[in-house]
């Protein structure tokens, strides 16, 4: 499904701009639509403006300019925030509170009634696997455990959208696997999950659609399938050398030959069938056939050039005018 065709968008913003004091332009006219019920990934190198965009949607940062809506209400509407969950990057929760108390504290700030908060907290502690640790203080938790509590607190008000800023930061591989399961569970429950991350492999596995940000702008957005469509190709492995006659015929089908591998750039597997027929007719042994797509990481690198994750330069400062 193309994002452009989506009408039920939980976030629909246009021309969002943010200029910090000192002239640093963090966002330069961001327009974005996030479909309901999907896991949406926002990618970009450090300093691209991902966190600023999320913070604007959550009223943590005030936009210099913002048009659009979140959950059908203008961005900045305070009541809407009760329908939103958020796990900030490097989240800090009071160390003197127990895990269970953190959930009740966040629920209370969100205006959730005490009885509901108690019930929901217990349920979420089980979901994130922290029920055995719930009565210990946050100060005694490992980074991964804190992140699990962070994830649970983002859900304690039963939100329609959950914003997760680098949710797998500090989480071990097993924890990441479990977190992916939790994210998929959120999606199954009908929530929209908005993930900011630079771990592209993680996002590729869970996201339905993504947007790539660079230097304060959205440079690409769509489903992963759409974005990687152009690079779809089929690779056929063959055994032994091919004769000149068949090589000539293969070239007419747009086949590239490299060592023992034939490569064809086609969108449809049906277009590959004549090539297989040719190979079979010439008694060529086919060892493998693979559909290959560009990975999200390759797409990302192609989009932002050599400014890969962690390698981005900070935004340029405005030049001071001479008096």
């Amino acid at each position: 499904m193309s994002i452009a065709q989506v009408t039920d968008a939980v976030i629909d913003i246009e021309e969002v701009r943010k200029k910090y004091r000192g002239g640093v332009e963090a966002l330069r006219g961001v327009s974005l639509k996030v479909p309901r019920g999907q896991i949406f990934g926002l990618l970009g190198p450090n300093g691209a403006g991902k966190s600023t965009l999320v913070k604007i949607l959550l009223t943590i940062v005030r936009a210099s300019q913002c048009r659009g809506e979140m959950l059908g209400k203008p961005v900045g509407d305070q009541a809407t925030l009760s329908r939103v969950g958020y796990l900030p990057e490097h989240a800090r929760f009071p160390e003197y509170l127990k895990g269970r108390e953190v959930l009740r504290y966040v629920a209370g700030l969100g205006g959730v009634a005490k009885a509901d908060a108690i019930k929901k907290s217990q349920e979420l502690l089980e979901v994130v696997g922290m029920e055995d640790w719930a009565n210990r203080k946050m100060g005694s938790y490992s980074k991964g455990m804190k992140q699990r509590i962070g994830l649970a607190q983002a859900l304690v008000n039963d939100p329609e959208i959950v914003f997760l800023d680098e949710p797998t930061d500090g989480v071990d591989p097993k924890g990441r696997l479990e977190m992916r399961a939790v994210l998929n569970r959120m999606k199954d429950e009908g929530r929209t999950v908005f993930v900011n991350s630079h771990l592209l492999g993680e996002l590729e596995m869970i996201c339905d659609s993504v947007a790539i940000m660079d230097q304060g702008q959205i440079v690409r957005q769509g489903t992963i399938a759409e974005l990687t469509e152009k690079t779809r190709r089929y690779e056929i492995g063959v055994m032994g050398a091919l004769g000149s006659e068949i090589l000539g015929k293969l070239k007419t089908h747009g086949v590239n030959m490299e060592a023992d591998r034939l490569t064809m750039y086609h969108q449809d597997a049906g277009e590959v069938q004549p090539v297989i027929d040719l190979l079979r007719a010439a008694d060529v042994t086919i060892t493998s056939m693979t559909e290959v797509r560009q990975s999200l990481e390759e797409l990302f690198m192609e989009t932002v050039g050599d400014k890969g994750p962690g390698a981005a330069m900070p935004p340029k400062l405005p030049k001071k005018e001479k008096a």
Partner: protein
Amino acid sequence: MTQILTIFWDSYRLLTAKRLFWVALGLSILIALLYASVNVGENGISVLFGAYEWASPGGIPAFLAQYIYLTTFTNVLVPFWLGLFAIVLALISVCSVFPNFLESGSIDVAVSKPISRVTLFFTKYLSSLLFVGVQVLVFCVIVFIAFGLRMESWNFGIFWAVPLIIFVFSLIYSVAVLIAVWTKSTLLSLLMAFLVWGVSWGFQAAESFLYKMAYTIPSAGLKMDYSTGESEQSDTPQELDPGLAQIHRVVKLVAVPLPKTRDATYLLKTKIKINGKDLTQKGAFLAEEDDTSMQNIHKAEEELANRHSESYVIGSSLAFEAVILSLACFIFVKRDY
């Protein structure tokens, strides 16, 4: 309402998690119990539940015993323990509340909730006053019971110390909060709070001293020769020194916008009453009826104690607090986190 209660609950959990809170509370209870161990009775004064006794040959009348017992509370315990050491401990304990709250990753969660930043700020500020509130309340309960059992008179005026000390603390803490939201520095906010407290205390003490020199001493009939250091007591009030009066007026004017931490603490003496007389009316408890010079001295001291109206002390301090908190709230609300 759920959100406000949540912030108060969180502050309660924070203060009970602080070791300094329990140390201060323990010291408060110890000092209150020491006070409770003192007895001022018809036969004299005893301390440590009768371990040491000083007999009074002429006996101490009940109203005078009450006066001595309560002025020990208002003139010693309140200004030195509750109004100084307890406040210093409280400031050290809570001055990190706002800087910690404003740390990235912590403030984000709070301000992304459906609660206005103004409500969030003021609730956080008010809930931080719990530290002092709990200490003073426990202290006053012990003093109230001790006084009631010793004097067989239940004086609820003692509890005026609770709002007054919280108010004094809130004045100093407001400065710490302003610096905290501005710089996010715990150390700087603590230093600035102490600085403003010290400066305002200095001006109040100077104003009080100058008033005493310019008005109280002449009114009491005392004539001072500052070149020789000799003094002369007469039954009639002396002439005022216009130069000292002028200096007093200037210092008082400078002190107007400052928080009246010292003066507010001493307001307690006007709030606690024995037989309808407040504790500033020294003459009603101590003066001999036929001793004119002592009556003049007590009258002058009463004027000194009541030279500022309650509305001036509270009003000017509230104005200071309002300005400081408005500025702090403005920064808190407008800031990007």
